[in-house]
C-alpha cells in the first residue's frame, strides 16, 4: 500500500513513462512524431487507461485517493461484479507537472484517440515542465503545455531562459508564486 501522495504520483508517472516506450504504444509515438516532439526532452508519457487492471485493491485505493481513478457506477463483468472505473486521461499523451521540489504532483492529458482531441488536468498544482531555476532572467509563458513542450523541443532558449505553461491560458496562484521567487528575473515574454 502506498499512502504518500508523492509516492503515488511517482508510481503513476513511472508506469506511464514506461508506457509510451512500450511496444504496444505505437499510436502514441506516432502522434509525438506528428507534432515533432521527442519523448526525452518533453517528458511525455502515455496512459493506456489500463493501469489498474489486474492490480491489488490497495493500489486501486491509492489511485482513487489522488483522483486518478473514479468509480463510474457500473459494475464490472468480472466475478463478483466489482465496481468499474474510469481512468484520468485514457489513451492520452500525458505530461507531468512538478512542484518546487521537482516532484510530480499533477498530470495534463491530451486524449489522442477521440474524434476531437481533448485535454484535461488532474488538479491545479504544479508547473510544466518544472519550476524555473532561481537564476532565470528571461521567462517565457505559454498558454498550453503543448506549446511549452514545442518551445523546449525547438531548443531556442538560452542558459538563463526558462518556460512555464499556464493552465489553459489562465494564471493560477501557483504560477504567480513561482514567478515571485525569481529574484533575477528581468523579462517575461507571453506567447499568445
Amino acid at each position, binding site marked *: 500500500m502506498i499512502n504518500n501522495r508523492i509516492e503515488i504520483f511517482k508510481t503513476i508517472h513511472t508506469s506511464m513513462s514506461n508506457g509510451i516506450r512500450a511496444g504496444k504504444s505505437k499510436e502514441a509515438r506516432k502522434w509525438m512524431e506528428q507534432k515533432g516532439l521527442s519523448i526525452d526532452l518533453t517528458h511525455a508519457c502515455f496512459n493506456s487507461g489500463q493501469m489498474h487492471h489486474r492490480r491489488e485493491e490497495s493500489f486501486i485505493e491509492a489511485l482513487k485517493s489522488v483522483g486518478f481513478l473514479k468509480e463510474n457506477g457500473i459494475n464490472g463483468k468480472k466475478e463478483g461484479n466489482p465496481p468499474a472505473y474510469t481512468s484520468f486521461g485514457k489513451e492520452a499523451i500525458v505530461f507531468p507537472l512538478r512542484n518546487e521540489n521537482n516532484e510530480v504532483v499533477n498530470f495534463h492529458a491530451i486524449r489522442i484517440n477521440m474524434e476531437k482531441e481533448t485535454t484535461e488536468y488532474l488538479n491545479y498544482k504544479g508547473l510544466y515542465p518544472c519550476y524555473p531555476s532561481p537564476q532565470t532572467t528571461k521567462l517565457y509563458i505559454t498558454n498550453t503545455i503543448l506549446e511549452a513542450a514545442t518551445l523546449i523541443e525547438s*531548443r531556442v532558449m538560452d542558459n538563463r531562459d526558462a518556460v512555464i505553461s499556464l493552465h489553459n491560458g489562465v*494564471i493560477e496562484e501557483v504560477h504567480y508564486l513561482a514567478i515571485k521567487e525569481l529574484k533575477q528575473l528581468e523579462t*517575461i515574454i507571453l506567447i499568445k
Partner: protein
Amino acid sequence: MKNNIETLQLLIPNVELRTVDLPQDHSLNDMWLSYGVEGINKLLAEQKIIESLYPSKVKKVGLKQINEGKLAYETNSGTYYVLGDLSTDLSTLKASLHFEEQHSKRKHRNKIDLYDRGHVLNFAKTISEAEHIDINEIESDLLKLTDLLEAHREKEYEALNPNKSKKNTNVLPPEKEREAQTFLSQPDLFENIDKLIETSGIVGETSNRKLVFIIASTYKMLNPLHALVQGTSGSGKTHLINAIASLMPPEDILNMTRVTSKSFYHYSKDELINKLVLIQDMDGLDEEAKYAFREMQSAGQVSSSTTYKDKFGNLQSTVKTVNASFASLSATTHAEIYYDNMSRSIVLGIDESPEQTQRIIQQQNKKLAGLTDEVATRKAKELLQNCMRILKPYEVVNRYADKIQLPVEAKMLRRLNNHYQSFVSQITILHQYQRQKDEQGRLIATVEDLKLACEILFDAIMWKIDELDSSLRQVFEQLKDYVRKQGNAQPFTAREIRQKLNLSKSQCFRYIEELKKLEYIQASEGTANRGFRYTIAYFDNMQMTREKVKTNLMEQLSRL
C-alpha cells in the same frame, strides 16, 4: 490573455513584460512543424514591450555616479557604495564596498574582490546575519553589482583608449551625402561657399574668410596647408579661425590653447593624421613645442628617442615616432617673432579698418537682438561640414604649374611657391565633382583654378612681399595719409599720432619704434627729455606695388 497581462503587471511590477503574437489560426506547434528552429526564432524576435500600467516602485537598476570616486547601486534591501577607483587589472575586481541598510541606515564596510566567490559569500553572510536579509537576495544583488561594475570599467577603459575602429562611425546618411554632393557639383562653387560662410556668421573679411576656409579644408589632403593669422589684440583673429573651424567636421578638430614642450612627442602614432589643429595663440606654445610643430609641418613627423620601463622594470630605449599630416590655423599678435613658423604658413592680416569694426558691431547687435536666423546658420554649418566629410583626397596634376612666376620680391619664394601650388591643388580638389581625371585617376587643374588661387591668395602673397606686418602696414598707411594732409615736411609728435589714430600709448610707442628701426620714419627734432618730433623718411607706395604685382600675375594668367 489581456487579463493575464494586467494580473502579471499588478503582481510583478518590476519585471519587463513583452508579448509575442502567434499568426492568426496558428499554434506554436504548427510553426515548429512548418518552419523549424528558424521559424521559432523569427517569431520570438518580434517581441512587443508592454507599457506598465503600474509604474514600478523599485528604484531603477543601474549604477549612479555620485562623484568621481563614488558609485552607488540601490537595491530593495539597501544601497551599495563603491568607493575609489576600480583596478585597471582586468583579472581582479577589488572594491571598497559600503552597504547601507535601507531602514536602519546601518553601514557595513568591507574591501572585497568581487571575482572571489569566497569573499562575496562571506560578505553576503555578514550582512545577512546582521540585517536579517535573505542571503540569496544579497548574493544576487552582489552579482548584479559585479556585472554593472564590469560594464562600468569597460566603459572607462574604452574612454581612455578610444578604439581606432570608431573613426568610421561617422557615416553620413545617404540623403545628406547626396545634398552635399549636389552642392559640390554646382557651378560657381566658391561664391556659394562664400555665401554659406557669411550665413554661418562671419562678416566682412571677404577674401580672408575664403582663404582660411580653403586652408582649413586641406587637412585631409596630401599637402595640408597652414595659416597664421596676424592682428593686434582684440581684432578678431581667434574669432576668424574659430568660426572657420566650426564649419569643419568637429570630430577632426584638435583645439589647443596651450602646448607643453614635449606633448607633441607623446601623441599616439596616427593621432595627428588628417586633423585640423587650432592654435588660439602662438604664445601658448613654448620653444620646444614650436620646434616640434615646425618639424611636423615640414617633415610630416617627429620622433624622439626615449627610455621606457618594460614589464620587469628594466629600462629600454625606443624611438617613438608620431606621424603628422594636419592643417593648422593659428593666431598671433606678432608674426615676426615666429619667423621660422611664419615661413611654413600662409600669413594673413586681419582687417582692422573702422568699416570692419562697424560691420562686426552690427552683426553682434543683430545677434543679441535675435535678428539672425539661427536655423539657417546651423544648416549652413552642417552642409559645409558634410561637404568636408565627403571630400576625398586626390592627387592633382597642374599642367600650367611652370607657367606662373610669382613676384621675385617676395620673401622665402621657394616656400611661397610651394604654398601656391598646394593652394591651386586644393581648389581643384574642392571642385572634385566637376573636374576631369586623367588615366591615373588624378584630377586635372584648370585655368579657372589658377585664377581663383591668385585672387584669393593675392593678399597673402602681398604680405610676403611687404616687410611691414599687416597691422603695422595699416598704421603706416594711415600715418602717411595724416602727414600728407598736414603738409609733408611738417614733423609730428607721438602724441599727435596717438590721438589721431586712436592708439594706446604703448601700442603707439611700439609702432614708432618699429618704423624707426626699419627707417620709415626718423626723429628730426627734440631730445629724449623733451620728446622727439618725427618726419617720414620713406614714402613707399605699397598701393602701386600691389597694382604692379597684380597686373603682372593677371597677364601671366591671361596668356594660359
